[in-house]
């Protein structure tokens, strides 16, 4: 009996490649929304406990990103936007990415459970599971509703932040969840409209590829119609003040006008690019204003009621 041994080439991946594997830009938005969820909770969080919770959420989000790149390496290699990621570039092997992702996922969930509380840990575990197993493995390659349902994973961080602070859930973090959930389709479909060739080549059934540009533009507008009042909801429900309410109205109007322009646009993709860029600013400013409003001690809230 003969045994053939093969040797893997020693890795050339540096620390930077592993950081890239964690999708730092997505991670920063996750951390920010989780921080807002934590700080708007009506309880005092010890800074050290808060920092530990945020660190665990950050690492958990990075683990989900790494596992997404592990599973989607074949798709990433075929798309111009993702061809420069560490696995398609040959810097990191799929096995290394999987090992890295699963290890960080396990560590982040267990550490959050031990240091903060079990509800936050359970929500983080569910988020990673949903993003990797439900979105990446199942939905992304099988339905044009992939980013709609999968968007739930990206919408959960404010709930994890709130749960880290309070140990329970309430209507406030659920509204924050809904804002991100309904923000995701206009954001990603605006991107997929001007990257339609990429998605078609990779065989990803994004809405513009499956249902056409016209239907996608119509659905972007419909989801923005739902998003705009949801953005104002924290003020209408009385747990954010006037400063937030005015900001949410102005930002929502911006999203609405751009979505309308996307709907009316034919031939070009200028409005799509503008909507994609503005949607990032919209979510960031909306959550930042919520934080400013809460940090100002509800000073402006008295004028609203």
């Amino acid at each position: 009996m003969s045994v053939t041994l093969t040797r893997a080439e020693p890795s050339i991946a540096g620390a930077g490649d592993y950081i890239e594997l964690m999708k730092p830009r997505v991670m920063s938005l996750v951390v920010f929304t989780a921080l807002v969820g934590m700080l708007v909770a009506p309880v005092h969080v010890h800074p050290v406990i808060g920092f530990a919770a945020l660190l665990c959420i950050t690492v958990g989000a990075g683990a989900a990103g790494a596992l997404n790149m592990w599973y989607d390496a074949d798709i990433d290699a075929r798309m111009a936007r993702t061809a420069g990621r560490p696995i398609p570039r040959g810097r990191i092997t799929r096995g290394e990415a999987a090992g890295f992702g699963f290890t960080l996922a396990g560590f982040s969930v267990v550490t959050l459970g031990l240091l903060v509380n079990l509800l936050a840990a359970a929500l983080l575990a569910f988020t990673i599971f949903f993003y990797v197993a439900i979105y990446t493995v199942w939905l992304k390659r099988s339905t044009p509703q992939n980013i709609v349902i999968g968007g739930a994973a990206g919408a959960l961080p404010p709930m994890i932040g709130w749960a880290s602070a309070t140990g329970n859930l309430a209507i406030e973090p659920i509204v924050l969840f809904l804002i991100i959930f309904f923000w995701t389709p206009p954001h990603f479909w605006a991107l997929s409209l001007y990257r339609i060739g990429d998605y078609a080549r990779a065989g990803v059934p994004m809405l513009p590829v499956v249902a056409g540009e016209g239907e996608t533009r119509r659905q972007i507008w419909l989801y923005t119609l739902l998003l705009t009042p949801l953005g104002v909801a924290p003020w209408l429900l009385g747990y954010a003040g006037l400063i937030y309410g005015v900001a949410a109205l102005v930002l929502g109007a911006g999203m609405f006008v751009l979505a309308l322009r996307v709907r009316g646009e034919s031939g070009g993709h200028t409005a799509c690019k503008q909507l994609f860029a503005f949607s990032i600013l919209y979510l960031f400013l909306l959550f930042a204003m919520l934080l400013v409003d809460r940090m100002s001690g509800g000073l402006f809230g008295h004028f609203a009621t």
Partner: protein
Amino acid sequence: MTMASETMNELRKPPTNEQWPRGGVRLTEEQLRARRTRSIAIALALAAFVVVIFAVTIVRLGSGALTRPIYMQPAQPTQGAK
């Protein structure tokens, strides 16, 4: 001889394949540099992990961390207890 021991004997033989150079695998400059950055990153991550665990432990225990007795007397039986 069992199949398991045959396999082990094959594995013990010095490799003749060109994939396994004599004297071990020599890393290139790029591979050495990459390994060094990975090692530093792992060391920093472990140090940060230790600091976070330590800090949270102190916060959770509060001032009791400094005043807790190292040895606690076992509870004395109350009077009248048999």
